[in-house]
């Protein structure tokens, strides 16, 4: 359940950020009363790295045990490390959770995902306040609006937008993809200890760059459609 809560939190938060950047022309002023800013709020999105995850100058590779000792605690790093400009994320209230263990190492205590059938009824919804900082452009009618079920590849996703006072005050994730039908058979005892390291910027010249370019499109689609209903127009 903690895993789901955290994942929902991350999805909602980064979806909120993503939606913020994307829906310039398609949203109205949704900001409720501003939530208390966190220390690392950054005014303008840019390339500054969040200081709480400043990368070391050199790679600090180390055995897993030592790297555990240096692992940033979750309070220190939090979700703010991803995405890079988490102003909306920082404004979200902290999800209550117990003191966390250090970053997990790989032998022998990693949790293998337990096979979990998608429940017949929707997963219990978690309300997440989302602080939006979008330019004002029209208004939304009060109420709760449910977006369509969208395909998040590993299961369906459905977002509900809650409007009060003409503003978006909350997002409910009604359906979350949890389509892990199987667990992978891994004989962990047979694996050697894998090396950990903290990532660090490299200055070498390279011919080609490999990186990923995927985003959670399904979240954006469902939220956008929900807001479209609230605005009375299709966005």
């Amino acid at each position, binding site marked *: 359940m903690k895993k789901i809560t955290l994942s929902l939190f991350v999805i909602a938060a980064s979806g909120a950020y*993503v939606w913020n950047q994307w829906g310039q022309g398609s949203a109205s002023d949704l900001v409720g009363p501003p939530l208390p800013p966190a220390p690392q709020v950054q005014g303008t999105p840019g390339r500054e790295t969040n200081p709480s995850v400043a990368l070391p100058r050199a790679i600090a590779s180390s055995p897993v045990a030592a790297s555990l000792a240096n692992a940033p605690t979750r309070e220190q790093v939090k979700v703010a490390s991803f995405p890079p400009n988490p102003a909306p994320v920082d404004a979200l209230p902290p999800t209550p959770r117990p003191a966390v263990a250090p970053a997990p190492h790989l032998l022998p205590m990693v949790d293998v995902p337990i096979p979990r059938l998608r429940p017949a009824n929707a997963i219990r919804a978690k309300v997440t306040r989302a602080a939006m900082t979008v330019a004002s452009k029209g208004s939304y009618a009060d109420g709760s609006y449910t977006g369509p079920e969208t395909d998040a*590849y590993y*299961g369906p996703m459905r977002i509900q937008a809650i409007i009060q006072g003409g503003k978006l005050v909350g997002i409910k994730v009604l359906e979350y993809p949890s389509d892990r039908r199987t667990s992978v058979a891994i004989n962990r005892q047979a694996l050697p200890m894998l090396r950990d390291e903290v990532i660090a910027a490299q200055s070498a010249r390279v011919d*080609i760059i490999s990186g990923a370019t*995927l985003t959670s499109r399904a979240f954006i689609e469902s939220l956008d459609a929900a807001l479209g209903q609230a605005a009375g127009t299709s966005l």
Partner: protein
Amino acid sequence: MRATRILMGMPITVDVVEVSDAAILEAVFAYFESVDCRFSTYRPDSEIAAINDGGLDVGQYSREMREVLALAEETKRDTDGYFDIRTGNGSLDPSGIVKGWAIRNAASIIAKTGPRDFYIDAGGDIQTSGKNALGQEWTIGIRNPFDAAQIIKVVQPRGHGVATSGTYVRGQHIYDPHAPGRPIDDIVSLTVIGADVLEADRFATAAFAMGRVGIEFIEQRPGVEGYVVDRNGRATLTSGFGGYCAP
């Protein structure tokens, strides 16, 4: 000669060393366009759209479609179902395997016409061959998932394929995904090096879906090596990955 085009919803770069005629590049781009026409779920007249609409009989599937669907099925078995081209609503979306498959085929197109030194980069999945224009091993940088202007690792795949799966947003721009959306997980970037880019791509896709456990799956799987970055900026290497790192 090098050129970049936006095809299949992503930038595709083809660089063939010591070639002055653009014909080979045009042939490669034309091939990617044909792949898009067949496999894009965003094109209403594609073969995959016809299949998903129920308007195509299995006996009418093209050879390429059958090949890709068979590869998808094999990958699904190899990954205990973590790779599955069937989406939540029951339709098929093979884009998780088409990219690597297409790059591999495009590399064959180049190799068959002669050149030994080239690379193809389609949306961060890369197949190299031979050496660069300076006669050195091709070097590939893995992009920092937290800062697109940085690289965090330098590898020399020496002809092996490289694929990176991940979920992150770069600066103010959201990439318009032509791959299925993913739930964001506790890992943000996974790079796989495999025998060729198809191997790397299909296992990068599946292993990413496994979250933190994915790197162990890569470690256990012969023939592929991996480098995963979690959302705290901590990376894990499989035991053979170091062998690809630049000296």
